[in-house]
């Protein structure tokens, strides 16, 4: 297969776009398209301060790389989760993130959950009802809280995450199967900031297939953590991705069309607006001040207070937040 732009041997074929490109032109195409999505969805401007959530994986490191190449002012945030899984998963992902930051002379903020909150994610998960059967739930809750706190405290204009189209389509698929209208209403390339203190969030890679972000990382090359999080085995999100990929094999472009049709339907008012579903009912958590819809304490503070109590720690023994 030949590159559509120069006729050289193609490195990747994107069946949904009927577009094959060589290494050189693919590495140009990804930033061009990213810039297009940033503008189309009004994610942020060159003058904005961006915080990129970096996990050490292919998506977030590629996003940071692309934003840097495009000239955006983007710092990284790495959250140390303390996951080992027999492969030193967190230690290795932190090393990849730090290596990337050092090589590109970028600022990386590191927050170690065990240092700040008193326990690792696996420890916390084993000590709470929320996490006992699904550590991903405590992990997601904690990451969202820390990302919002660092973005808000650091005065960043936007928090950028490396969610790709497969991530978005899988979430959309799951929320559609359960008709979670509130979640559906809040899904999109941009989640606006709320007056109650939720940082603005953007997903510049939301229209790239996962194999495109992986190809970008391989071709640049960017050294990323290849091992999957040990706790992700059997995750619903992965199952949904596999189901969607089976359909995509028969119907190229199905995933993209699923997501774009959803965005179009949302724009036509099929779902309530973000404001109608979420921010209106938010108030500050009585412990940390971050917005929550729960009465009193937010889910993060409730969960971690429970963890520290069962772990024999008091909130004062953990480092200040």
């Amino acid at each position, binding site marked *: 297969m030949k590159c559509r732009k120069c006729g050289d041997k193609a490195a990747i074929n994107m069946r949904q776009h009927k577009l094959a490109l060589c290494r050189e032109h693919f590495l140009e195409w990804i930033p061009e398209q990213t810039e297009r999505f940033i503008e189309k969805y009004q994610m942020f401007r060159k003058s904005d301060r961006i915080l990129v959530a970096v996990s050490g994986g292919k998506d977030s490191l590629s996003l940071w790389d692309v934003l840097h190449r495009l000239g955006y002012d983007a710092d990284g945030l790495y959250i140390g989760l303390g996951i080992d899984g027999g492969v030193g998963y967190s230690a290795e992902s932190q090393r990849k993130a730090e290596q990337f930051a050092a090589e590109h002379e970028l600022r990386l903020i590191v927050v170690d959950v065990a240092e700040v909150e008193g326990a690792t994610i696996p420890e916390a998960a084993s000590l709470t009802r929320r996490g006992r059967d699904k550590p991903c739930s405590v992990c997601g809750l904690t990451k969202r809280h820390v990302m919002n706190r660092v973005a808000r405290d650091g005065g960043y204009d936007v928090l950028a995450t490396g969610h790709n189209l497969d991530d978005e389509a899988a979430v959309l698929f799951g929320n559609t199967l359960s008709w979670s209208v509130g979640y559906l209403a809040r899904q999109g390339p941009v989640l606006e900031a709320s007056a109650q203190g939720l940082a603005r969030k953007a997903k510049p890679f939301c229209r790239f297939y996962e194999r495109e972000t992986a190809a970008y990382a391989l071709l640049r090359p960017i050294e990323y953590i290849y091992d999957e999080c040990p706790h992700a085995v059997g995750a619903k*999100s992965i199952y949904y991705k596999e189901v969607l990929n089976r359909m995509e094999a028969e119907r190229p472009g199905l995933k993209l069309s699923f997501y774009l049709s959803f965005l179009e339907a949302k724009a036509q008012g099929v779902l309530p607006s973000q404001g109608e579903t979420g921010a209106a009912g938010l108030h500050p958590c009585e412990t940390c001040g971050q917005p929550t819809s729960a009465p009193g304490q937010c889910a993060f503070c409730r969960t971690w207070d429970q963890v520290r109590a069962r772990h024999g720690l008091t909130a004062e023994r953990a480092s200040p937040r």
Partner: protein
Amino acid sequence: MAARLTLRDREFEARPGSTVRDAILQAGLQPDSVLAIRKGELITEDEILREGDDIKLVAVISGGSIGAGS
């Protein structure tokens, strides 16, 4: 001599003369879930497998806490 596909610690035999895409499907994998590398170079799925080819497959799916509402 057969061609070989490797994905992490799993190996699959493949028939020379078939395309990479057919070999991936034959192995029970989804073409959209992997990238194929031959001698360090990313290749497209229409490439024809040659005798003795050693194709490294890179898994591209990641997941976990991206669940509902994220």
